[in-house]
């Protein structure tokens, strides 16, 4: 492959290290390569902004308008209103913070637990491996959603961190197993043996030599576990097993279906459809963006144009 592009990159490939700036530049290039990825990225940015700034756009108690209960879609209420006459759009925007923050934390915990335990199990084979894998098997076997439902009786899910922690605890098993199997094959490779021969510490080998090689898998998983976490937490609120501390999409769904009777009264329909729409849009964004993340972290897929 001697396209001008590769020739140029070979030319500039002097001992210069793979620093932060060039990573972001490469990442940006893989995002802008396809329209679908740009759309996905835009949707994710939109929701992230919503989560960060959304609650500041409205007063802490959203205005109630008794004259506009279940108002139809209009300029004033772009997504209609709920049973108190509060704008559904405002509910979606202010509800995004809890949902996204808890999901991001949940995915982060999943990835951290899974990666650290997987690396340790795969690198230090032997008793630590068998103990960690027993525990992993145990967590993989327990059906995680029923477990979440049962845990909701004792655990206070009011804070996103608490929700994220439990979501992480229940879902790291698959990640740990996959990272372990990759580490098992990597530890036999030449560069790891060389590092061991140089007398580098296991800590260095694990996190500086092996970790970058599993990073593409981790990056993909971070995104897919965010969607998993969103479904699980919104689902918990939808089922109504978790007390409603804050407004969020799951609470909206629950109220719409079980209190407002949105299934049978067409007036309440926008109240039901707006959180569904938000969920579907976010899913679409993540699915479209996933493809770019794969390329970002996996240098073998990077086609230099």
């Amino acid at each position, binding site marked *: 492959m001697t396209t001008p592009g590769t020739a140029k990159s070979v030319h500039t490939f002097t001992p210069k290290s793979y620093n932060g700036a060039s990573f972001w530049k490469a990442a940006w290039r893989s995002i802008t390569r396809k329209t679908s990825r740009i759309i996905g990225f835009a949707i994710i940015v939109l929701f992230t902004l919503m989560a960060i700034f959304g609650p500041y756009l409205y007063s802490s108690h959203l205005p109630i308008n008794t004259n506009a209960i279940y108002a139809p879609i209009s300029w004033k209420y772009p997504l209609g209103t709920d049973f108190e006459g509060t704008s559904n759009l405002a509910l979606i925007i202010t509800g995004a913070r809890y949902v996204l923050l808890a999901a991001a934390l949940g995915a982060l915990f999943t990835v951290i637990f899974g990666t650290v335990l997987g690396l340790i199990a795969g690198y230090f084979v032997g008793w630590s491996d068998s103990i960690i894998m027993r525990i992993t098997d145990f967590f993989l076997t327990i059906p995680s959603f*029923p477990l979440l*439902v*049962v845990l909701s009786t004792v655990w206070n899910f009011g804070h996103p961190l608490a929700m994220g922690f439990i979501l992480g605890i229940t879902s790291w098993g698959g990640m740990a197993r996959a990272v372990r199997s990759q580490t098992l094959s990597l530890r036999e490779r030449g560069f790891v043996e060389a590092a061991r021969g140089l007398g580098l510490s296991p800590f260095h080998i694990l996190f500086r030599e092996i970790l970058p090689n599993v990073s593409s898998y981790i990056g993909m998983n971070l995104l897919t576990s965010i969607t998993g976490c969103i479904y699980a937490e919104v689902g918990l609120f939808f089922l109504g*097993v978790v007390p409603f501390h804050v407004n969020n999409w799951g609470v909206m*769904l629950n109220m719409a*279906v079980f209190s407002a009777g949105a*299934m049978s009264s067409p007036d309440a329909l926008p109240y039901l459809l707006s959180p569904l729409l938000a969920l579907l849009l976010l899913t679409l964004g993540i*699915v479209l963006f996933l493809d770019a993340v794969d390329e970002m972290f996996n240098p073998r897929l990077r086609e230099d144009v």
Partner: protein
Amino acid sequence: MKNFLIRLVWRIFSGILMVLVIASLTFFLIRLMPGDPVSAQYNQLIMQGMTPVQAENQVKVMYGFIPDEPVGEQFVNYIWGLLHFDFGQSISYEGIGVSHIILNAAPWTLILVFTGLIASFLVGVLAGVISAIKRSSPTGTILTVSGSLLHGVPQFVMGLLLAYLFTTLWPILPFGAPYDSSINPGFNGPFISSLISHAVLPVVTYALSSYGGWLLTMKSSVITVLGDDFILASEIRGLKSSTIIGYIARNAILPLFTLFTLSIGFMFGGSVFIENIFDYPGLGNLLLKSIDTRDYPLMSGAFLLITIAVIAANIITDFLYTFVDPRIRR
């Protein structure tokens, strides 16, 4: 054969150990609960005019242990009861054994999920083979996209959308309840047809939300097999393409077989959302209701059954695989 038996015994032993760990987890969970439901129940019975001895016996029957005993002793009693399949008594359904309630709820879940599972498996696998073989044509692309989209939509969103579409917007199917309450339950035509028409939406919801997973897994499995040498060899020998597809399918289905038997284990707890939306009286609904009414013996019983099913399916899968795939047997 001897190795096989040793492995079997070991797996069953570790399975039982796992069940016991989960049972202790729910046991201590109930003890940890704010307000200690066990003592609360005891005090409530005393308030109702029972003597302490009566109240203690009643609580013991309900939870399988006595509140005043040291925790260690309670725990031993509880586990001892479990080993005799004694899950205690329900609080909300007064005086009825937990195992009885659970066994009544299980068939609803099983019929619902099993039908959905079979339907999605057959259609998904077939679509997966087609999308892999025709992966560069529009048919393949459309199938794959349909799979990824349906795979991405969460079960409760799918359920709500389907329920809205077919019960309100275009009311051709009934909503909620497992059958029409005006019809006498029994083995008669109207009852069975009402049973079926009420089951259509839940089953379709389950089938649609698991279809994508089967399609995508089968597709990638077929593509892996397509690269194998024996496929090239059979093409060179000029075998009929239908024969080759038969070879491909037989090899590609193996990983899916494992997933399928594992799904059977996850059936018991896999339809919490669907049962909730369509008000189906299965295990998932039972679990939610028991939490709602603070019926903790029922809750731990339902959760235990859901987990035991998964553990059993894991063990069975492991051993069936050795029969299905001769390459493993060595």
